[in-house]
């Protein structure tokens, strides 16, 4: 609001050079214009800056009248009271009172009911009707999804036909082991019986998409809603700080199919979400 400008009309600059410091008497007096009918008040002040240049400071303020504000007579009287104490020498530049640049809202807490609803929506196909004939052989759910699209298929115990497991996961495991010749723990060796622990890890790595730069309000249902349009999501996870209970700003989304995941990455990387720009990428397999 305050804008600085060099003096235009008068050439006080020449006078300044004559004697050094206190030239305040040379400055034009402070001017107060208004407030006019729009409530705009302009205060013009002059001062010397550090280099001895004369600076004109114009401060424009607008007083807005609140509609149908009822004020008592005494309050109107008080309005014209002279300033006292430290407020007397208050200069225009002090800016003790500022209007927040940030819009602050009364943030409503998330209703408990709506949260429940969200968690029931996690299964995206649950609400599709007219699919009673579908019976999933992996999880046994009826009318929910086909076996091939079962979101819980990685949770299920590996079937006897373990050989035809997706090669991607195998590659990840091999990469983690550090190539040939290196020590491979028995649980990761080919044909070894998988324990649930490694199975969990495999699940985490499969078609897993890392989402970073999430806003701290983002919860798993929000993320699910964001990623659901790209395909069946098998897992959504948002990292929560254990101490504070707040989101740590990143999360993982697992897709059932790799293509869906790739589409989601293509589409959502750099997508503006909750005034932040999302970063969506393949989650690198953990090396631990």
């Amino acid at each position, binding site marked *: 609001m305050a804008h600085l400008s060099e003096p235009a009309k008068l050439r006080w600059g020449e006078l300044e050079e004559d004697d050094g410091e206190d030239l305040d008497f040379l400055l034009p007096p402070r001017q107060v214009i208004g407030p006019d009918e729009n409530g705009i008040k302009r205060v013009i002040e002059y001062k010397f800056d550090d280099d001895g240049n004369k600076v004109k400071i114009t401060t424009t303020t607008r007083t807005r009248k609140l509609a149908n504000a009822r004020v008592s007579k005494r309050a109107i009287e008080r309005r014209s009271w002279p300033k006292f104490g430290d407020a007397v020498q208050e200069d225009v530049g002090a800016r003790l009172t500022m209007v927040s640049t940030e*819009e602050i809202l009364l943030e409503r807490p998330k209703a408990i009911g709506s949260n429940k609803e969200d968690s029931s929506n996690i299964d995206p196909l649950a609400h599709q009707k007219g699919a009673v004939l579908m019976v999933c052989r992996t999880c046994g759910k009826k009318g929910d999804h086909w076996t091939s699209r079962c979101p819980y298929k990685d949770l299920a115990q590996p079937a006897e036909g373990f050989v035809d497991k997706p090669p991607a996961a195998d590659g990840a495991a091999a990469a983690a082991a550090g190539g040939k010749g290196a020590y491979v723990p028995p649980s990761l060796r080919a044909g070894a019986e998988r324990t649930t622990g490694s199975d969990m890890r495999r699940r985490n790595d499969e078609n897993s998409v890392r989402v970073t730069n999430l806003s701290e309000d983002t919860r798993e249902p929000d993320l699910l809603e964001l990623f659901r349009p790209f395909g069946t999501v098998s897992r959504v996870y948002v990292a929560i700080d254990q101490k504070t209970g707040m989101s740590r700003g990143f999360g993982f989304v697992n897709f059932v199919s790799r293509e869906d995941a790739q589409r989601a990455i293509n589409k959502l990387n750099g997508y503006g979400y909750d005034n932040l720009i999302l970063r969506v990428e393949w989650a690198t397999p953990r090396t631990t």
Partner: protein
Amino acid sequence: MRPILMKGHERPLTFLKYNRDGDLLFSCAKDHNPTVWFADNGERLGTYRGHNGAVWCCDVTRDSGRLITGSADQTAKLWNVQTGQQLFTFNFDSPAKSVDFSVGDKLAVITTDPFMELSSAIHIKRIAKDPADQIGESVRVIKGPQGRINRAVWGPLNQTIISGGEDSILRIWDTETGKLLKETDKESGHKKTITSLVKSADGSHFLTGSLDKSAKLWDSRTLTLIKTYVTGSPVNGVAMSPLLDHVVLGGGQEASAVTTTDHRAGKFEAKFYDKILQEEIGGVKGHFGPINALAFNPDGKSFSSGGEDGYVRLHHFDPEYFNIKI
């Protein structure tokens, strides 16, 4: 809403008070100068210079003529609101923590902290109409509670004084005799220090905030517990809307823990609760430190909060606020 930020104090805020018409806002802070602001636009009207210690509390008469302040410099002072002139000084032997004018502004209650060998005390002073006639003698001194008395206010018809403090017990005293009439029991009462106490507009009930992370609503006459509002962090300041059935709790983690944890853990929010349903309506963020003081404008259309960060934030509600439904 876009709050108005008032940066007049250099130290943490301790107390906020609106005058009855709601056009002036008085702020007290740990710097030594209580300040008065115009409550509509936040413009500073003046400061009251003369205290030599943190100012803990203030009260203003119904006609907005006099201001009383209690300070850690072991004095309570009377001021001319308009000119900032000091009218009288009550001297004590320990810091004055809380001040409150009675109905009719003829009496004032001042509490003093325990200090050296002195125990805490509640002093009742007569306030003379003409400052020239003012005397420093107490009409009555009530002693008894252990620890600091953080707040003492007048009960209905000035017949009682309600006090609460570090011993986490609320007490009702008889003004005439100085006898203890009622006190809260362990079950319904607060578990930790009572930090703040505010009366409803009609004085029939009052709200207390405590470090036990709750605020409680009490009947002024019977001292029966009416409602409890539970929140996630210690409560330093409370306020009650005179217009809607809303209560506001302000607080946050202790100031000493602020630098050691994530800023989001601080919960420096003013939390709105439905007075009757005890359910949270929402929170207003903005402070960089715990909220120490809260006050509602008597018209119920704005409220202000004062924080450990030295800012007073004045919030004029958006129209939507008045239509909030649970």
